[in-house]
């Protein structure tokens, strides 16, 4: 089909005003510098299905997007034909507060949904960094998580059901609309974090939680990473039940507007008021035995963590929980070799560390002196290093996902070959070149 004919075919599906083709509009939708041929904004599941079907029949490439805030995740695409913009899919389809379940379309923003749920004292416990304006579909497909995961889990735990469009345009449903179901394979697990490479999530049924009647947040400042690490270990070994346990290095503390110290641990507790103050007191006493200084934080501290992780380079490191302080030190050390001084925020109870840095580094050095040494050490312990954001030349120098061991990679390749045999959905951007 010729380019004008394709434009007409897209216009016939979504209306001409929802097909963007001008150079300015398209460069704004570029993925790692690769400009899509069209940016198309469907308003219904059926329209998404028809667009994907059109792409499949024409051998074209579709890159789904929500708010566009995570387009830097993944390997640079070879080409993008349709930037499939789901931000018009904004329906809250079903929300029965007594069930604590909501079914929403993929383009619903977290802040919009949060306001609706808040009217009933409920919330979706997904808090990706810098992310209230992000969409539900994008957050789930990109596997983004935040500090609340310590208590509530991640997208995989909260996604009960999903409607998705397969690579041939077939609209498919997996999972259920109730909080507990084991009927058939857990298809939503397969979609969460799959970067749209097996199907485009268009509707999500989500498990919700009650907003706690009271909450408190504290920052405990320490004079070394090790003492901060000992404090985290002590909290994890106690019967305290925090919502969030964030570890921050000096760079992140300063960027988050806190006084500088070598390491800080921010903790929040949500419960009834009596339990919040009791746990706050217990935390303060545990911290002071490690020489930590306590100060009270407001809720704004948590939403500001995304800002502390800004910068052209961002990585996510995962390790065993108890090894996180060690790996934070290693990361800081290898970054420093190239003059990078990272701001680091850890999900300390989950063994997840986010680091972001300003500055630049030659691609060869990036691969050989920073990424490889960290990955070599981490992979021996089952950990990983994902480059979540970096200039294209760095992404090309070292696979952003890192190696996937066999035969897991072989299985993933078979999954991709089964569900997207012609490479319609985000080809080449996921692990192992999938």
């Amino acid at each position: 089909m010729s380019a004008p004919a394709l434009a007409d075919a897209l216009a016939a599906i979504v209306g001409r005003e929802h097909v963007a083709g001008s150079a300015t509009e398209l460069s704004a939708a570029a993925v790692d510098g690769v400009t899509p041929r069209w940016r198309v904004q469907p308003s219904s599941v059926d329209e998404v299905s028809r667009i994907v079907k059109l792409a499949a029949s024409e051998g074209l490439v579709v890159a789904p997007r929500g708010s566009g805030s995570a387009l830097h995740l993944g390997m640079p695409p070879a080409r993008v034909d349709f930037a499939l913009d789901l931000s018009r899919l904004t329906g809250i389809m079903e929300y029965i507060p007594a069930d604590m379940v909501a079914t929403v379309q993929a383009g619903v923003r977290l802040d919009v949904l949060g306001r609706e749920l808040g009217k009933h004292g409920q919330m979706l416990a997904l808090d990706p960094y810098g992310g209230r304006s992000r969409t539900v579909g994008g957050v789930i497909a990109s596997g983004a998580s935040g500090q609340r995961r310590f208590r509530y889990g991640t997208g995989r735990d909260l996604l009960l059901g999903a409607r998705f469009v397969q690579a041939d345009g077939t609209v498919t449903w997996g999972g259920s609309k109730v909080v507990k179901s084991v009927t058939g394979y857990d298809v939503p697990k397969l979609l969460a974090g799959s970067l749209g490479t097996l199907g485009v999530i268009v509707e999500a049924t989500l498990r919700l939680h009650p907003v706690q009647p009271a909450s408190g947040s504290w920052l405990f400042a320490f004079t070394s990473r090790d003492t901060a690490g000992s404090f985290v270990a002590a909290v994890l070994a106690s019967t305290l039940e925090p919502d969030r346990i964030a570890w921050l290095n000096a760079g992140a503390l300063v960027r988050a507007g806190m006084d500088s110290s070598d390491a800080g641990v921010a903790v929040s507790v949500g419960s009834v008021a009596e339990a919040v103050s009791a746990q706050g007191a217990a935390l303060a006493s545990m911290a002071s035995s490690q020489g930590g200084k306590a100060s009270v934080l407001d809720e704004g501290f948590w939403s500001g963590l995304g800002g502390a992780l800004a910068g052209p380079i961002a990585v996510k490191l995962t390790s065993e929980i108890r090894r996180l302080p060690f790996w934070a030190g290693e990361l800081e050390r290898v970054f420093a070799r190239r003059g990078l001084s990272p701001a680091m925020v850890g999900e300390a109870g989950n063994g997840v560390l986010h680091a972001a840095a300003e500055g630049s580094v030659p691609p060869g050095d990036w691969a050989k002196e920073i990424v490889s040494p960290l990955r070599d050490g981490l992979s021996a312990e089952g950990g990983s290093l994902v480059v979540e954001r970096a200039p294209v030349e760095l992404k090309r120098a070292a696979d952003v996902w890192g190696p996937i061991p066999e035969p897991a990679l072989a299985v993933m390749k078979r999954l991709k070959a089964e569900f997207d045999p012609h490479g319609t959905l985000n080809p080449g951007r996921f692990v192992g070149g999938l």
Partner: protein
Amino acid sequence: MALSPAFLAELERIVGARGVVSTPEGRLAYECDMHTFYKGAPDFVVLPETTQQVVELVRLCRREHVAVVPRGSGTGLIGGAMAPVGGVMVSMTRMNRILDLDFPNRSATVQPGLINLWLSQATREHGYYFAPDPSSQMVSSIGGNASTNAGGPHCLKYGITVNHVLGLEVVTGAGELLRVGGKAQDAPGYDLTGALVGGEGTLGLLTAITVRLLHVPAGVKTLLASFSAIDDASEAVSAIVGAGIIPAALEMIDETFVRAINEGVGAGYPKGAGAVLLIELDGPAAEIEAQAGRIVQICHDHAALEIRVAQDDTERALLWKGRKEAAGAVGRMSPTWILQDAVVPRSRLPEIMREVQAIGARHRLVIANVFHAGDGNLHPMILYDDRVPGELERAQEANDELLRACLAMGGSVTGEHGVGLDKAWSMPLQFGDADLSFMARFRRVFDPDGIMNPGKLLPSHPACGEGFRPAAPRLPAGTWV
């Protein structure tokens, strides 16, 4: 050479002669799980001791096109661990060791045959436990729990098994030894760990499971509230959850069960109650005190007859004993029953309970209920006497109506028991063709030749009828039964 003496010799070479059961009476012990309605003995039972033996077994069966049926403790309720077309049953009971306890990382790695409760017993003195607690936990295996994605009363607060599995070692139906996930979270790539849990042995055999351990909560408070009518109890459930309280467990026991449990187990539940709620709170002391106060208030507002609070561990254990042994107690009321595991959205609980009673009345059958009210997971037991002509058929009709009623309310076919053979044909009631086809293709990625637990989980398997030789006679003539 399938199922020939040479095949038997191959099995014996892999697991040793003592690791193979081939006598008719030996195989008979493996012909069903706890859903005794479905029977099918395997041609051979093998009991491997190592992962490597499992790999060799699967590769042999794949080469010979022989069905492989995994089995843990055999306590499933869905006709899962039985062999409808014969083949080799792989029993994991000899692979029952704890491989690693790692408290700083809040995790444990175990072999699949380890009994669920043993893990919590081994970790509790260190202050940790394994949260999934199916009622069978004193006998069911963690491999079986992960394969069926088992639930339990405490799933309301803590989630089902999949939320507690961090990593797996699996021998796929393709004969690969696959390791996914582990102590470090968020491994890049597809979440194979999450997608394999609940596979019911149709994707592969689990040979090691890394699970999350939770810290034992600071305090526990167990309450029992009785009501004159099940309607009041159902409304109280909605009100408790509506108040933003997620108890660790919130269980409903109806009048029929209260009677049976009191007679059979001696739990001392309030006599004459129309419904009993068993409510457990856990967490920091101040939190559970405040929540307990609020719950007592809510129960009073919903016309509770009596509210008891367990004063110590002994009282708490007694309150739970009745609930955990409910299925056994029902034997006092009826020789046979059909157990349903459907789910409804929590808000439809009062409505579905009225419907359950109406269905029972319509079919002149007693339907007894003990279930996880907090998450809407029903367990109606349809009591019938198979010696009375026509009762089984009426019970099956009632069961079917009940399932459809739950689905009409937006529910699900199974909340925690799984699909197995029993509910495979109910799948199309909940899923469309495209959805089922997606699952069938997913299955084929792991099991290209259709050897893994055929006939289970999906209504039909693409490989069925081609991958298999004609089924051998289930039991040779002359077997004593």
